[in-house]
């Protein structure tokens, strides 16, 4: 059962890496490194080396972004970049969870309701948080890139400042609206 899960996860990793390589293929000659990174992740998963899997994922994400660094800007490309990035992030979180749970004996997996319940809850929680992060990131990017400081074009440092400005506003808003009420609820 545990082996099946690893194989499924490896298959998903490989698929995401292939898709992102196809996206980046027309923009850079470095597109294949994303697939290589995926291969390293699969190797790490199968051999159960967390650091190998982490390294492979970092390689894949970084070279995917590097390959599409001069992608023409539009709302669609923005969504593609954020979408693929969060796919990688989700994959990383799921792989981390898988590694941390690998030590748990699964002899009686079918019977262990506590573990199954935990898996279900954590999966829901992961997807909720990732979706929320995606929404926040998309709004933040949109705000910063279309801000009145004329970011599009990146002629001067104004773009960089706009980015920081937009992100900071978003974080402050987020902390005031979501985090602080939760922390001081008691």
């Amino acid at each position, binding site marked *: 059962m545990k082996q099946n899960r690893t194989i499924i996860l490896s298959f998903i990793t490989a698929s995401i890496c292939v898709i992102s390589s196809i996206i980046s293929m027309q923009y850079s000659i470095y597109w294949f490194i994303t697939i290589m990174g995926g291969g390293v992740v699969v190797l790490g998963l199968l051999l159960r080396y967390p650091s190998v899997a982490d390294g492979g994922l970092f390689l894949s994400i970084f070279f995917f972004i590097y390959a599409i660094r001069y992608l023409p800007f539009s709302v669609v490309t923005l969504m593609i970049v954020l979408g693929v990035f969060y796919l990688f992030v989700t994959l990383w*979180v799921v792989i981390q969870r898988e590694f941390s749970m690998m030590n748990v004996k699964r002899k009686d997996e079918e019977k262990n309701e*506590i573990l199954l319940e935990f898996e279900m809850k954590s999966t829901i929680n992961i997807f909720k948080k990732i979706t929320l992060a995606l929404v926040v990131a998309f709004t933040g990017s949109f705000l910063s890139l279309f801000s009145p400081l004329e970011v599009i074009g990146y002629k001067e440092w104004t773009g960089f400042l706009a980015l920081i400005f937009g992100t900071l506003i978003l974080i402050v808003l987020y902390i005031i609206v979501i985090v602080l009420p939760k922390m001081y609820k008691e």
Partner: protein
Amino acid sequence: MWSRFSFYYIGFAIIALILGSLLRSWVFLIIAIANISFLAVALLGLPPKKFDVKVSRKEDLINLYEGDEVKIEISLKNHGDDIQFLEIYDPIPENTEVVEGNNHLFTDLKKGEKKAIEYTLSCPIRGEMIVGPLKIRYRDSLNMFFKNLKSKIHTDIRVLPEIEKMKNVKIRPSYTRNWLGNIPSNSIGIGTEFFSLREYLPGDELRKINWKATARSSNPITNEYEGERSGDIVLVVEGFKGTSVGTLRKNTIKASIKAAASLASSMLEDRNRVGLIVLGDYLNWVYPGYGRDQFYKIIDNLSKIEKGGFWKATDAKWFIKRFFPKRSLIVFITPLLEEKSIETVMDMCMKEFDVMVISPNPIEIEKEITEDYNPTAERILKFERNNIINRLWRYATVVDWNPNEPLEAALNDIARYKKRRRHL
């Protein structure tokens, strides 16, 4: 506490910001924003402010026998805030195995909620072990934050050596003492077996009068009984490193310990005084004594045996001569792999010690675990072993015991053989 993954994301965000500015790429800047957003959302999973989980265990000390299984029961109560994701790990000793349930699990714990953890542990190797203390870790679903809590309570497990119940075989010392026991002493005393008749003397119990003999002789005649006494027995267990054959789970030392524990149990039931000398990494000894307490003292010492190379059979000889009662039956439990052990046994027999040797057969153990079995090698080893045993038979009773079979059967064979020899 921030996990290393949170630092990866922070680092990635910084790299993306720098590269975005240097390469003038909006993609890198967007990734930096995405990373920061992700970190901000991850803040939702900060550890609870009040993280207080009380742990209690059903038992602090468990005694069990080798090969038995034990149920570990732990209960948790959350005295703090709601905990969404909790990792619980109860460390178990190296030589044990979880056969049912889990000692490592992930769960959630609401405020004031109680949860019970149960798992069954198999303990195939004797010794003293500690289960726990329980490690509790809060971990958010994105693996960005964690907080540890360590309980101080643990369970001590004492795995006692396996004991074989021997009902039909009795090992009896040749010399008996003056105290009561189960060994017929061949002299008049307190016992149940009829020995002789004598004239009635004032003070004799009425129930001891033999009425038929009284009627025949016209004088009152009293029955006399054979006194039943007990003796002193010293068990010497050899744990010398060089004599250990087999794996961790099956070896000659384990077999020797099982034999010693079984003999001690049987001999103490017969009301003998039993002592123990353990030779191994350290020399440990128990002076002969009676009863249940003595049994536990012996078992306790046997469960602590560590194989080692310091104390040898020659030291036991010196020790027995100086500190143990004279004319005790010395039961040497040794695989007979050391020439010095064999010489010591012969030397002790010549110095009028009453010696018996019980030898767990190392060839049988080796045969069971070896992957490349060689019948010629087995024949040579058996031949050598038989030579040693034949040499020793001139001085002492030697029991060649196959540890895969019950000890009682091996002792029975020897008892039958000795009986046959007596009748010849």
